[in-house]
């Protein structure tokens, strides 16, 4: 199917790659269909989470293991019930990245990770109770 994207214009995607966020994203609860789009030259360090329905709704996301290797959020199974997870290893975690004018000050939202079950392509953004994880975690540098 063809979709319009923020970074790549009009592209073809496999409908099977569409990830369903039943509750959308926080603040965008009505946008439920997304795809992960990458640029393979960038070796998956950074990737786009692109809304299928709204071309301008696209987030740069990054897996926290690349910049916060100790990040081990306690996620209540019941909180991610709708992802119908059978085992932990089918879950991928992503943080939404915010890039200010000075790109070196880019931050990742560790407080509200995006969780995707790669087995059934269901996703959810949750907010962690842990006060140690920040909404604006500096990707490069001291936090």
């Amino acid at each position, binding site marked *: 199917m063809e979709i319009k994207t*923020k*970074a790549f214009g009009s592209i073809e995607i496999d409908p099977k790659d569409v990830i369903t966020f039943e*509750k959308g*994203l*926080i*603040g*965008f609860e009505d946008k439920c269909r997304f795809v992960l789009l*990458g*640029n393979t*030259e*960038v*070796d998956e*360090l*950074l*990737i*786009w989470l692109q809304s299928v329905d709204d071309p*301008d*709704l*696209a*987030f*740069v996301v990054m897996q926290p293991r690349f910049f916060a290797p100790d990040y081990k959020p306690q996620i*209540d199974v*019941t*909180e991610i*019930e*709708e992802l119908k997870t059978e085992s932990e290893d089918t879950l991928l975690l992503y943080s*939404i*990245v*915010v*890039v*200010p*004018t000075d*790109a*070196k000050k*880019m931050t990742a*939202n560790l*407080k*509200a990770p995006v969780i995707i079950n790669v087995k059934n392509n269901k996703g959810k*953004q*949750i*907010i962690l109770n842990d006060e140690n994880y920040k*909404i*604006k975690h500096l*990707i*490069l*540098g001291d936090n």
Partner: protein
Amino acid sequence: MLVLSRKQNQSIMLGEKIEITVLEIKGDQVRIGINAPSNVTILRKEVYLQVKEENKAALQGPQIKLENLAETIRKTRNDEKNK
């Protein structure tokens, strides 16, 4: 907005499955207990709003190119290593 007054230990039901109880009133703070099914998200409003704002902030700014961003990350990390 429906407005109700409750005394300590009184409760409010939202549907059959959600119960909100005033546990304690101390000065200007109210301690509230919530019983709800696990699929109901319960958040302090200001935290919800902060995350919403941050999601919106992620959409702002100049067009991002993943390659440039990745390059900035790699370069900064290399510079740190070589210090």
